[in-house]
């Protein structure tokens, strides 16, 4: 059993126990959110000892080189001494510029960051509520178009962070956010490739950023967006998307409603089902899937079966866990 030294104390790490689980089991609080190696909230640094490679998947090279790792994905193979990132590593102070309702349970949170944050539309940042609680939110803004960062935040009634954004946060407040991470963004390596984007709920946020990024970079291939929800009312930004489709003939927007009452102008069915039914041969396409984790997993499989290469499938499941 390897031991983990943290804050001068030594802890025995059981087999199949991650650094995060081991700390939690000993009542030591390490910031975490997804517990799935995605959000990077549980970033730690190894002072001595080697961390397995899988604990560094997705980290920026500069961080990996300094032995940073993800506590939830780190199953130590030897004794290690670890610490939380030095204050300020990958953290920025931001000011709330605006909070706008997009529909009954999603708001657009606009943040201004003093130091310029390097990001690509569609990546995500972690929004810190306090020193131990943070959640990931995707960037709907495009650095070249939007002055501020735009996040679409859906309220989960009993959540720790999203209701706080909806009800407690005020214009002028200061909040801490992380560096932008994630690889769900547009790359202008093939302007003629067709793009299929499928999102549910606030999963539109990254897609809205990616689409506008692709359009201003002169993407020529088809860009097809399928945005889905249970009811027509819970879709949002329809007007913006429709006018974008008028302005750019290669962009098509299909709002999808999976519930019973489907008004005229909406496709009936779940977004990924509608998208695959209307686009049966996806060989050579690039696919973006964001939102509900089950939709993302099913959508991935369907797109792959329809001919898309695994390499060309980009996905951000909006995983949420109940703890902390």
């Amino acid at each position, binding site marked *: 059993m390897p031991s983990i030294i943290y804050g001068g104390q030594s802890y025995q790490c059981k087999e199949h126990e991650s650094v995060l689980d081991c700390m939690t089991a000993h009542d030591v609080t390490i910031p975490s959110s997804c517990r799935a190696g995605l959000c990077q909230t549980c970033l730690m640094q190894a002072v001595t000892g080697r961390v397995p490679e899988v604990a560094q998947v997705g980290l920026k090279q500069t961080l990996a080189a300094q032995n940073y790792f993800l506590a939830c994905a780190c199953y130590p193979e030897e004794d290690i001494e670890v610490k939380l990132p030095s204050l300020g590593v990958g953290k920025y102070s931001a000011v709330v510029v605006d909070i706008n309702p997009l529909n009954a349970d999603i708001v657009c949170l606009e943040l201004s960051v003093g130091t310029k944050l390097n990001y690509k539309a569609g990546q995500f940042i972690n929004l810190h509520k306090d020193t131990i609680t943070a959640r990931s939110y995707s960037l709907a803004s495009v650095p070249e178009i939007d002055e501020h960062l735009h996040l679409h935040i859906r309220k989960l009634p009993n959540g720790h962070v999203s209701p706080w954004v909806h009800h407690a946060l005020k214009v002028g407040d200061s909040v801490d956010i992380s560096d932008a991470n994630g690889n769900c963004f547009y790359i202008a390596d093939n302007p003629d490739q067709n793009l299929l984007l499928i999102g549910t709920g606030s999963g539109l946020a990254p897609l809205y950023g990616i689409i506008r990024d692709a359009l201003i970079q002169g993407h020529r291939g088809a860009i097809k967006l399928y945005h889905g929800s249970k009811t027509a009312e819970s879709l949002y930004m329809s007007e913006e998307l429709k006018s974008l489709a008028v302005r750019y003939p290669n962009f098509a927007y299909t709002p999808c409603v999976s519930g019973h009452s489907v008004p005229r102008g909406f496709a009936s069915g779940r977004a990924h089902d509608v998208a695959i039914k209307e686009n049966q041969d996806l060989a050579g396409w690039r696919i973006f899937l964001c939102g509900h984790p089950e939709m993302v*997993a099913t959508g*991935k*499989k369907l797109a*792959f*079966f329809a001919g898309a*290469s*695994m*390499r060309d499938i980009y996905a951000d499941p909006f995983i949420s866990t109940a703890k902390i």
Partner: protein
Amino acid sequence: MSSLYEKIGGEGAVNAAVDIFYRKVLKDDRIKRFFDGVDMDKQASKQKAFLTMAFGGPHNYTGEDMRKGHAHLVKQGLNDSHFDAVMENLGATLMELNVPGELIAQAAAIAESTRKDVLGK
């Protein structure tokens, strides 16, 4: 004389084969249940490891690793018929990529040589 791995086309061939092979496996009613519930991205990189191995490419897996790596599947009932199905999909993938028959036979022989370990016999 160049190795089988080089003759088949090295990493490029693995990359070309992985989508085709993995799609076949996931659609194969005989074996797809073994691959359900595993994250597709992680699984795809394991498929690459499998193909690299079968193509005689560089890898660090021992027979013991193969035994351990598939032990949980053996518990779920993995047997010779499933192994045969994987061999079939491997062969069909290489045919689709127009790999010459003699090279397919060599790759199949490498995969076949792991049967006892994979099935925990």
